[in-house]
């Protein structure tokens, strides 16, 4: 077991209700939940691996593949949808050459769409790493990601 993992575990008692917070913490430090990380969590919390897997796959927040250095979260909320999010997503996919849910082979970029980031008045919007990009259009997307293509 690596040291960051034992550090995360030291913050918890290992009760069943700690499972989701532990998964969140581990994902935060490790980037994603690999099979072996989940096995370690299961051992620590004394639950079958199937249970840990079951809980992790239920929630949209958890990912099982690494995310890119630049992570794009496109909002697909209602306000974004009526203001053209589908075309924005197409353009992001087009610019980065990967599809939604994928990470580029060089681990530079990944795209994910989320139910709503709660910035509806800025629709359509996306979060690129931790920054909210507001009022997106295909043209604006092209500008933001023009570097990626080169």
């Amino acid at each position, binding site marked *: 077991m690596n040291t960051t993992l034992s550090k995360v575990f030291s913050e918890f008692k290992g009760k069943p209700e700690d499972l989701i917070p532990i*998964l969140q913490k581990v994902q935060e430090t490790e980037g994603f939940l690999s099979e072996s990380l989940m096995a370690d969590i299961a051992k620590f919390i004394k639950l079958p691996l199937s249970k840990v897997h079951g809980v992790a796959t239920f929630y949209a927040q958890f990912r099982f593949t690494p995310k890119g250095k630049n992570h794009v979260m496109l909002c697909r909320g209602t306000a974004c949808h*009526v203001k053209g999010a589908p075309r924005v997503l197409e353009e992001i996919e087009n610019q980065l050459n990967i599809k939604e849910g994928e990470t580029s082979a060089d681990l530079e970029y990944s795209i994910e769409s989320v139910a709503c*980031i*709660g910035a509806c008045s800025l629709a359509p919007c996306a979060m690129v790493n931790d920054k909210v990009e507001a009022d997106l259009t295909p043209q604006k997307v092209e500008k933001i990601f023009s570097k990626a293509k080169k």
Partner: protein
Amino acid sequence: MDISQIINNANAEWDDLIKSKIPTILVGNATCGRSAGSQEIIDTFKEETKKQGLECNVLETGCIGMCYLEPIVCIHKQGHPLTFYSNIGKQDAIDLVNSYLINDKNLDKKTIGVIDNGIKSDLPDLYNTPVMKPQVRLVLQNCGIIDPTNLNHYLANRGYTGVQKILDYSPEQIIEEVKESGLRGRGGAGFPTWRKWMFCKEAKADKKYLICNADEGDPGAFMNRSLLEGDPHSLLEGMIIAAYAIGADTGYIYCRAEYPLALVRLRLAIKQATEKNLLGDNILSSKFSFHIKIKEGAGAFVCGEETALIASIEGERGMPRTRPPFPAVSGLWKKPTIINNVDTLASIARIFQNDAKWFSQYGTEKSKGTKTFALVGKVKNTGLIEVPLGISLKEIIFDIGGGVPNGKKFKAVQTGGPSGGCVPEELLDIPVDYESLAQAGTIMGSGGLVVMDEDTCMVDIARYFLDFAQKESCGKCAPCRLGTKQMLDILEDITSGKGKIEDIDLLERLGNGIKKGSLCGLGQTAPNPVLTTIRYFRNEYEDHILHKKCTSLVCKDLIYYDIIPEKCTGCHICFKSCPVNAISGNSKDIHEIDQDLCIKCGMCLDKCPVKFNAIEVYPGSKIMEEQDNE
């Protein structure tokens, strides 16, 4: 230090801030402000005042609700009214320091309005501007006006007086007061808050829990986010009062992990309140103890359902269970549990800072008080609003919202998120209250109001919501798991031109079956967007099915792009932009789109120079039209 002393100190600090010789600049720095660049404005104010040698407080505040005007800045300057400015850029910030703060010359063109602090002014009164006038801000009274990270600002604005007051009350008295206020749950269904509390109070148990549902999952809604970012102590105060009434000593705030700033503000607020003994053991030296923990939601819409939320806190998959027993009797770890929405609990704080009568003067006979809404979509003034219940949808959209932008025609407003429905223009006069909205086939919901115009396809919207509901269905009960999938398949057929006319009736039959047969609120309401769009916009379904046309130009399979020969100059730009080589024509010749090859990506339309405007989108199919003509 006892509470009156704490409050005196807070008042002194607040007075000092708004009356002092040193000006104070408040910059809206919630999520909306930040994405409009407020952080840069804060830095600019700090740099510029330092450069000019001007002593000045630069503070961050929450969102005042007018998100379309961000970054918003509010300035307290001695001898001047409290003045709000909109769309402040870097240069404007520099101008405000040099012309207004140093030379008394106001930046009128950027002024939204002023709040009266006893000083006369020719500038418009902020609360009398068209956007603000129909609003009544009870829950949002502090948002955008106080520094959410400073407990003293909250205390100086009647904060925690509710808690002080109720410590002398019996739980019954509190519940009686809530009953008198007429407050109903703001999470959507509108169950009377006092009755829910009564069930829990009367349940016998060694431990009870209070949970605040801040897992705002409706796409198109952000009321809770704004309140948590702009005034977190209001929620804590409401929770303390609720916990005292029902007899809980532990509370949880179940907040979305997608709201990082709200989580930071909440953690700080809990720490501050604990330090001042407003939370923790023996609150304000009484016998009452209450502790609050934060649980971060992991992204599951179904967790808005009470029993699913409880399962999630217990570390399980967020799947609902059958009720009864209701959580008020057997909830978290099988103990009596009350789950209230953020808006409900913040309203509780206001009711006890004032009184039940004061609260119930607003609203209608059956729906009392005010409600916060996120007014978004195709509307000019997007943002967060708070209105008395009973106001008409028309007033909200056209008076506060300023109507539909770009000269487009209003089509519908969607309330209640994926559980609600679309209300057409002819019903815009109905009052916003629980019963009237239910009659129109929709629900109040947690407060999302998404405005749609002529460019929004109602069949596509129905498909969008069903897609959402189907993905978020937890899979436990068959009507929801299989039914939403069936409905989605049919809607996808219709939007791709493969629909049959009997599909409309089938959708209605399926929808009504899913509503009756599903285990929890998600399934019971998931068909609403489809049923209301069929009820009010049947003609659009028929256009898609019978005429293979999407008149709103949204559904790709039912539209086509064409080049207008008279306008085309043969500039060749569209030719180069087409990813599938569907455009032919030599430079300087009129170009043409091969309809068989075209994937309708719209690149050519985006790229065709505005001065030519030679590409147009039409409903239907060019190939079919040509066949019809022959």
